[in-house]
């Protein structure tokens, strides 16, 4: 038997799932206090036919590392799936928080079209720091917390990669 923990709602909720292999593609899965007989069949890329007891589901899993988006019957469930070892490592690394220094990174590749604050400014939560243009639309990046802008790594007109570190608020 293997135990997995799924993090839901951006890490604010945890659910435990226990999986036991019963035969090829056949599993016994315990979740939410109930035990299900599960028959899993992988079709093409990311698509799985899941028979949970007798109910048939076509499930799409778009997975990147431990994060996955699971699509079932018109709903999408963004979650993170960790085994016990990874969960322990995660716990050791500390929880999600807005305390202390917050780094702001580019959510997508694009171009900085406007810088709205300068280093040393006192910002309110939700106050705009800079505007990035991608796909012809402007998006304002806002301060995640009230605090002081302690770092600003870009200037107007600069192109940035997705994930590039732009600024920090403390």
């Amino acid at each position: 038997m293997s135990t997995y923990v799924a993090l839901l709602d951006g890490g604010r909720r945890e659910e435990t799932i226990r999986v036991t292999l019963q035969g090829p593609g056949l599993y016994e899965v315990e979740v939410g206090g109930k035990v299900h007989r599960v028959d899993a069949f992988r079709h093409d890329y990311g698509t799985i036919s899941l028979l949970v007891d007798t109910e048939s589901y076509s499930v799409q899993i778009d997975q990147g590392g431990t994060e996955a988006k699971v699509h079932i019957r018109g709903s999408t469930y963004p979650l993170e799936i960790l085994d016990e070892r990874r969960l322990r490592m995660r716990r050791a690394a500390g929880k999600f928080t807005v305390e202390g220094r917050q780094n702001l990174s580019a959510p997508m590749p694009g171009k900085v079209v406007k810088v709205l604050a300068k280093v040393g400014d006192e910002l309110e939560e939700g106050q705009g720091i800079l505007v990035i243009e991608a796909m012809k639309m402007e998006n304002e990046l806002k301060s995640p917390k009230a605090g002081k802008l302690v770092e600003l790594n870009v200037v107007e007109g600069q192109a940035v990669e997705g994930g590039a570190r732009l600024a920090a608020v403390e």
Partner: protein
Amino acid sequence: MSVERRRFRKVLVANRGEIAVRIMRTCREMGLRTVAVYSDADRGSLHVRFADEAVRIGLPPSRESYLVVDRIIAACKATGADAVHPGYGFLSEKAEFARALAAAGIAFIGPPAESMDAMGVKTTARKNMQAAGVPTVPGSAAPIGSEAEARTLADGIGYPVMIKAAAGGGGKGMKRCERGEDFEALWQSARREAASAFGDDRLYLEKFLDRPRHVEIQVFADAHGHCIYLGERECSVQRRQQKVIEESPSCILDDARRAAMGEVAVKAAQAVHYRGAGTVEFLVDSQRSFYFLEMNTRLQVEHPVTELCTGLDLVRMQIEVAQGEPLHLRQDEVVRRGHAIEARVYAEDPARNFMPCPGRISYLRVPNGPGIRDDSGVYTGWVVPQFYDPMISKLLAWAPTREQAIERLKRALGEYTVHGITVNLTYLTKILDHPAFRSGEYDTGFCTQFAKDLLARPDPRYEDVALIAAAVVAFKRDHDEAESFAARADRHAPGRSRWQSLGRARTLRGSLR
């Protein structure tokens, strides 16, 4: 009036993505050779692969490729293209582009440059329409020089006001200002967007109407003085002035009003000596009065809605008219059947304030089945570039009734699978399911008013199934890893041949079985 007739042999499509593919499909059906143009970001784009010939025209930013008139003309000359289809956006509504092509002896599949002048700058268009007796919305008569002047005018008209790009379209450079305090920031943002999207940062103002609906009429005119209308498209489901869902017929038009608006639209087109496919956009207020908003002198993104209802191919008609042929049908021969709806699939994340999501599509499966049409410009493995519009596809459904068309589109959205980037499929489904949309009682404020309802809240009934799926896949992966280590360690184990090891590894690898 004598009309020059010519027959095209090769059409250059001065556009990219889904619309370039859409146009090339008709060209191919008509036996016309096609030429694609592409920026460095689009070498691998579907439209390049789809064309008979392709020419590189520059760097990824559109100002250095798709918006450079000289590069397009050079590409025509290099390939011997005798006509250009501009698609929508980019150079499609630039009169100077049509003029430059004419000077080079290349046909422009679109209206005469003079019609574009008359409709292209929206303030001029308003003046022309007022002169032709077409009702218009109160606002500034000309582009406004300074921000201070604009602010005074906005205070005079009364909030909310719309700030719009004089050269604009498609929601770029368009902002709705609710309060005087926000005016400065919105004005500047609109100005930057306008400059970046159209290379022209002139702005004007218009009064914002109460609960207006956006209803537009498709018109078609030939060079022989005939002009017809092909019915309406209801486009009130918009977000940030960008259309999201379009349908025809509109729930608020009866035959009499449809004919009244159609005739006004034809009058508008004829007032500017229009030719080819055009769309006259109207705002219809809560009293059902309609006002001219603008005329788009090009093929619209949502033109397939009209194609499904009328059975016509608008791109074919554009090409025929540009070749000097008369329209092949009269107004009383236009037949409209059933109901069509289009949903725009955008690479954006509704959960993160509709942040654009460029990136690699790791897997794509498009819907199919009765009454479904998918006009797409992407494929598995394609990296959606950050430089252009986030729309990757338009999904349409046709059915005999509105209710069936909605259910059909919903069904198809459920079949749509896009991995690797985030798309707005769930958002689209939520719109189709919303009671206000179902009732037909919605206006252009729909997406803002019901923003909360439209955010994805996954159905709690299937959460356990999602957890089971994720856990089983993780288990399988971990199990495979363990098995492959074991198989390697086993390799020289006595009593088991290599064939046995291989067979065992094979059985355990790959599928979940």
